[in-house]
């Protein structure tokens, strides 16, 4: 009787604690009991795969995973989360020692996760022939030299395979150019800054004669677009060894000033009040803006707009402008990786799954056909896809520009290859004084920012060293 009583009491206490745990989460709207178990599989053939994405990602991965399960006899559990909660949930899973066997990882997280022994080194698990058929950037983005702290160097171990590479391309409104009787920009050769400004001026007009501009040359958000122009002027945010902030060079200041002057001096962008990203995005799709970014994840939307409004909107991809004729153009290239847990009980099988998800031809075809991403596989992307599949699926005429970015013109966003991106984030705090109000010249701004950014970069390296020492 007493034993029964004690057991009942124990259950009561446990229940009360459970209720306390659940109720304590009330304000955030979450429910601990609904959280999926993200821990890795226990049985020799069990794997968990945690990722984020839309319906097409899910469809593609269900196809790839079904084929993988059939081929290997594995039993894969998929855990999908909202995109904006993924990073936080993954970190919570790591802190709670419930790391999934296979999961998405951002390139910027590699260092911290490797130092904390979260990621498995995939070098020995993946055949060189597989690596040779993936974009260099797709693998380099996950290479990390644990000894020197260097990132992206060919030959170093890699800790993830690419889910995708995301080229941030530049585009123009083909219908607007035709309507204005202007010659379309070259799909192969970049314009110079001067040529771009000249074209943008011609595109900026008051179409209905009411005294107010209703069409502009461009409208670019500085946080996502200035990289291409700064790189196109031969400048950069950081030195090659990732240890010195280089924003205070004359080339950098000139490129940034030129970017700001597009709106402040040349008047070829909507005014500061009108220039929210959302607005210029909408204006671009409404056929009011001549030049605007075009990335793979926009293609589906842009195609729909072009189909609905063929008289005002059509688009194609071109290289980003450069400062002077003959300069090399560049733009940023994003990526998301598929990693394997260092503590997975089925590491080899997990590495096989990561390889499958990254390189399965059928999955790549589904993702490319639905305009989610360009294919990871070089032979398919540069062959059959570029020749027939891409155009048939509705990718833009000059899709080869995306391939070119993935192959050689793309660079990671500054801050991706340092332990933390705080130094780079800091650059944008106060940028409005240069590009929106013109209260400060670009030269003054970058001179003032360099010291603060360098301090944060140094701190990032110190933190990296400490993380390495702590393990």
């Amino acid at each position, binding site marked *: 009787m007493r034993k029964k*009583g004690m057991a009942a*009491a124990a259950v*009561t*206490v446990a229940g*009360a*604690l459970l209720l*306390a*745990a659940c109720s*304590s989460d009330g304000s955030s*709207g979450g429910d601990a009991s609904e959280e999926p178990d993200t821990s890795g599989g226990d049985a020799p053939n069990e794997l968990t795969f945690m990722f984020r994405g839309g319906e097409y990602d899910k469809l593609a991965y269900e196809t790839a995973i079904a084929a993988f399960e059939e081929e290997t006899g594995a039993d894969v559990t998929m855990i999908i989360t909202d995109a904006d909660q993924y*990073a*936080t949930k993954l*970190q919570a899973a*790591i*802190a709670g020692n419930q790391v999934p066997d296979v999961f998405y990882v951002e390139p910027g997280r590699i260092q*911290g*996760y490797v*130092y*904390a*022994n*979260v990621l498995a080194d995939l070098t020995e698990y993946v055949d060189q022939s597989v690596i040779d058929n993936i974009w260099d950037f797709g693998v380099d983005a996950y290479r990390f030299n644990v000894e020197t702290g260097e990132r992206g160097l060919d030959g170093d171990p890699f800790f993830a395979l690419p889910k995708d590479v995301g080229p941030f391309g530049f585009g123009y409104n083909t219908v607007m150019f035709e309507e204005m009787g202007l010659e379309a920009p070259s799909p192969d050769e970049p314009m110079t800054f001067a040529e771009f400004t000249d074209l943008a001026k011609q595109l900026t007009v008051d179409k209905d004669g009411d005294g107010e501009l209703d069409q502009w040359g461009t409208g670019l958000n500085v*946080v996502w677009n200035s990289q291409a122009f700064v790189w196109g002027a031969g400048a950069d945010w950081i030195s090659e060894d990732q240890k010195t902030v280089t924003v205070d060079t004359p080339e950098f200041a000139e490129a940034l000033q030129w970017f700001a002057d597009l709106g402040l001096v040349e008047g070829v962008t909507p005014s*500061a*009040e*009108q*220039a*929210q990203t*959302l*607005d210029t995005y*909408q204006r671009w799709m409404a056929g009011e803006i001549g030049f605007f970014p075009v990335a793979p994840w926009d293609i589906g939307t842009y195609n729909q707009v072009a189909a609905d409004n063929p008289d005002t909107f059509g688009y194609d991809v071109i290289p980003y402008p450069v400062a002077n004729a003959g300069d090399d153009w560049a733009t940023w290239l994003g990526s998301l990786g598929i990693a394997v847990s260092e503590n997975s009980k089925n590491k080899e099988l997990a590495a096989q799954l990561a390889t499958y998800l990254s390189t399965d031809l059928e999955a790549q075809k589904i993702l490319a056909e639905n305009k989610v991403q360009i294919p990871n596989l070089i032979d398919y992307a540069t062959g059959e896809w570029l020749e027939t599949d891409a155009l048939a699926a509705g990718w833009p005429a000059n899709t080869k520009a995306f391939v070119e970015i993935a192959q050689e013109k793309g660079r990671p966003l500054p801050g991706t290859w340092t*332990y*933390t*991106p*705080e130094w780079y*984030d800091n650059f*944008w*705090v*106060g940028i*409005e*004084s240069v590009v*929106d109000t013109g209260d400060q010249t670009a030269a003054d701004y970058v001179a003032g920012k360099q010291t603060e950014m360098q301090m944060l970069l140094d701190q990032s390296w110190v*933190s990296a060293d*400490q*993380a390495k*020492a*702590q*393990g």
Partner: protein
Amino acid sequence: MAIDVDTTSGAWTKQRRKASQKANRKLHRKEYTWAAIFMAAPVIGWLAFLLFPLGFSVYASFTNWNGLGAMSWIGLDNYVRLVNDPYFWKALWNTVFYMIGIPIGLALSLLLALALARRIPGRTFFRTVYYIPVISSLAAIAILWQWAYNGDFGLVNQFLAIFGIEGPNWLMDPTWSKPALIIMAIWKGLGYSTILYLAAVQAVPRSLYEAAALDGANAWQRFRTITLPMVRPVTFFLVVTNIIAGSMIFTEINIMTPTGGPNWSTASLVWYIWNQAFRNLSMGYATSMALVLGILVLIVTVIQFRLNRRNDFSIE
């Protein structure tokens, strides 16, 4: 005369009393045990879910910790960094600025409660309408308001344009970004405060108003001397909980101005803490800021309790 004492019966009674006392003691012991077990539940809960995390946080705030690997003790370094970090102070200032919305929201709620307490047509409908934002997802509301604040196409500026007012580009203007978030927060919290005030207003005895009316008090005097003091416990509760909730403002900022707004004008302290913890892998530093915020909220709450006690009164 000899007295016949039944010693056997006495002994038996004594024995019985003893047995009864023993049984009582046993019962008491059992009850005490059960009482202790049931009392242990919240105590263990408090230890496991409050004291331990709090102690852990205090310890973490004195360490260099990225939230992934091992911690290393660095003493007061995080606190020294915090004092010298201009972004901490700016985020703290922004957070304090958001509190301006609390008295405005409470005043509006009380006005609404007074209106809804009257027998006006459609009052059930209005009560429902005002309460809808309270039960709506904050993330969804933040996205809707982000559109509403759009400089060109937003509903807010379209509404202002009806009166000939050219609205600012709310979320992109450092001057207007914080007021924009305050307006949204007031709108979101109005229904909850109104419901509490409504209950308090309806609980005020009618006899007080009748007596005041007989003494010649006008509507404003009745409101100031009867309604306001009588709803003060609710006001106190709302001020305390709103300050605590306001100090934790995060979701709407992260959705509406994910980079901290123009010139960092909307970054709240919790948003900065979250960025340091999860984006910049400075969990130790983030914890020290969280503790400072917690202590500041505690101090403000204690002051409020003191002030409330000093102004306390009761009706005989």
